[in-house]
């Protein structure tokens, strides 16, 4: 009797309906957000594939029946950026030349500074930390003119090194904080164990901490690459016309009015410019989230 009751009753996991009211709300919000952000991209892509007549006569929301990559080719190779008509590829290579060294130098300096502050406390290291914390809140605009003078005095104004230097300097406060907090969250006993094992400053950094810090380095790379790639202002001010980054060149293409507006070329050039940060987020989003979480929660 009791047995049969047992057999008849529910057993195992309780079945759940696929759509619950909470889920419906979450999905609706997510879908609306996705449309909001993806729609402009959609317009840009279909416009860049049209020729100019189609743009002038057709509906902006409807894709073309005769897609062509002409606009992309023109944007990359021969669009006019002011005096020259060599396309946006010049800007692309300039951006690479600015982003790569700025990212590498700033991350090396910041990770070592953060590591020193977290694990090798020196006199006034706490004061230093406070200054760093405050300085990340100072609006960077106030430092633009002083840096113009500094780079001019150094004889590098309007050159690649100037813009690299400026990007490195502006990256340091936030990155140093990031690394300091991450290293401070690593178990102190690990550091002590390495000291007892005879490891010194560099050995602990490279052999013990660095291999454990892939997430935070990933976050730093993403922050720096996207930040520097998207920068316009420092590029215009410090790089000099021959080194203008892609964003500045894009602006020049869009604003250099020769004849009618070539919307398809503008769109293609814009997508090309945005491609690098887009690709970075796309491929490293998972690590980015993981790294942010690792920095926030004790790892």
């Amino acid at each position, binding site marked *: 009797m009791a047995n049969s009751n047992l057999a008849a009753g529910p057993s195992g996991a309780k079945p759940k309906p696929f759509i619950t009211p909470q889920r419906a709300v979450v999905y609706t919000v997510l879908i609306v957000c996705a449309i909001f952000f993806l729609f402009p991209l959609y317009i840009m892509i279909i416009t860049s594939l049209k020729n100019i007549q189609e743009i002038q006569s057709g509906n902006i929301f409807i894709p073309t029946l005769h897609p062509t990559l002409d606009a992309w080719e023109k944007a990359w190779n021969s669009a006019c950026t002011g005096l020259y008509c060599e396309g946006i590829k010049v800007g692309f290579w300039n951006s690479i030349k600015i982003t790569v060294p700025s990212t590498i130098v700033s991350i090396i300096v910041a990770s070592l500074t953060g590591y020193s502050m977290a694990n090798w406390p020196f006199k006034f290291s706490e004061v230093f930390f406070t200054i760093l914390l405050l300085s990340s809140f100072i609006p960077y605009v106030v430092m633009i003119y002083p840096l113009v003078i500094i780079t001019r005095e150094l004889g590098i104004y309007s050159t690649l090194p100037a813009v690299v230097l400026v990007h490195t300097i502006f990256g340091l406060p936030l990155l140093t904080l990031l690394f300091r907090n991450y290293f401070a969250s690593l178990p102190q006993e690990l550091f*002590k*164990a390495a000291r*007892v*094992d*005879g*490891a010194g400053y560099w050995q602990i950094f490279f052999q013990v901490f660095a291999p*454990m810090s892939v997430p935070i380095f990933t976050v730093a790379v993403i922050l720096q690459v996207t930040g520097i790639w998207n920068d316009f202002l420092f590029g215009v001010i410090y790089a000099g016309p021959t080194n203008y980054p892609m964003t500045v060149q894009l602006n020049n293409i869009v604003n250099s009015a020769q004849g009618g507006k070539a919307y398809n070329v503008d769109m293609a050039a814009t997508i090309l410019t945005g491609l690098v940060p887009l690709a970075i987020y796309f491929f490293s989003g998972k690590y980015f989230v993981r790294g942010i979480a690792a920095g926030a929660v004790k790892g």
Partner: protein
Amino acid sequence: MHSVSVKNLTLKFGSAEVLKNLNLDVEEGEFIVLLGPSGCGKSTLLNCLAGLLELTEGQIHIKGKNVTWAEPSERGIGMVFQSYALYPQMTVRGNMSFGLKIAGLPKDEIAKRVERASEILQIGPLLDRKPGALSGGQRQRVAIGRALVREVDVFLFDEPLSNLDAKLRSELRVELKRLHNRLKNTMIYVTHDQIEALTLADRIAIMRGGIIQQLDAPQTIYNRPANLFVAGFIGSPAMNFIKGATVDGGKRFQFGNVSLDLAGYEGGAILDRPKAILGLRPEHLTMVDEAIAGHTIPAVVEIDEPMGADSLVWLLAEGRQMSVRVPVEHRPAPGKQVHLRVDIAKASLFDETNELRI
């Protein structure tokens, strides 16, 4: 020559004095346990010995050498931590050989030492695994192995078993004792667990507030605690304390209507002290039915807590709570009127004014 010798060590964090003019001499091959409540400075002392903290004042000698300013790796010590502190990205073998590689030992010597240590600790099959793939007990074995391969004279342990569950803890405790018997190294072991201290130590140093309260063999600490703090800290269930006075030129202990004969007390001159405290361990009291003048305390049973073989019985005696440990089959019924027989040879008397044992 002492194996480890600490002279007048003072350590301050900012203005907070965490270790106060501390002295400690450890003999060659001795197993010393630093025992005390959380925050009393045990880890701080160990870190000073290891060279991980700079002393404010004082000296540390290891094997007769003044190492006060020496780097951790130059002191001839190995250390094991509560959180294991294994390098997560290295294999067990990598963890154990890391320090040896840094010291620049030849490859075959490293292999030999790792081999020997892993045999002693029975972690041979784990050598190529990463710490993440090990259980807590295995991790701590590896951490001990990492200290072992250094082939040093002094091992420092900072609560090495605290992160393990009760069963593993007692297993590893026995293993540590075996290891010490085999290697005969000096071991300095920090814990807040008195069972670990009593079972492992040759001598226990009881610490409170950065001061060593008593440094003695476990039995001495247990039977003749130097002061009220040690008496209360050691022993579980805790010692019963009865406030009273010594009278008749120190021949009797008086509290309420009870007067106990102090003849046979093992200690110093008792004298007449208006404020004294008698300490009686629950296991040194027996329940009897008949009163014996000068040797028993009348009491009423309140409740009892069976703990397997024994039962801890709580009673009211002269308005004071007292506990007695009895075999579980002798549990009295609540409300029963009994008499507690005192074994004065095993009792401790304290002067309440300075809290020291008489």
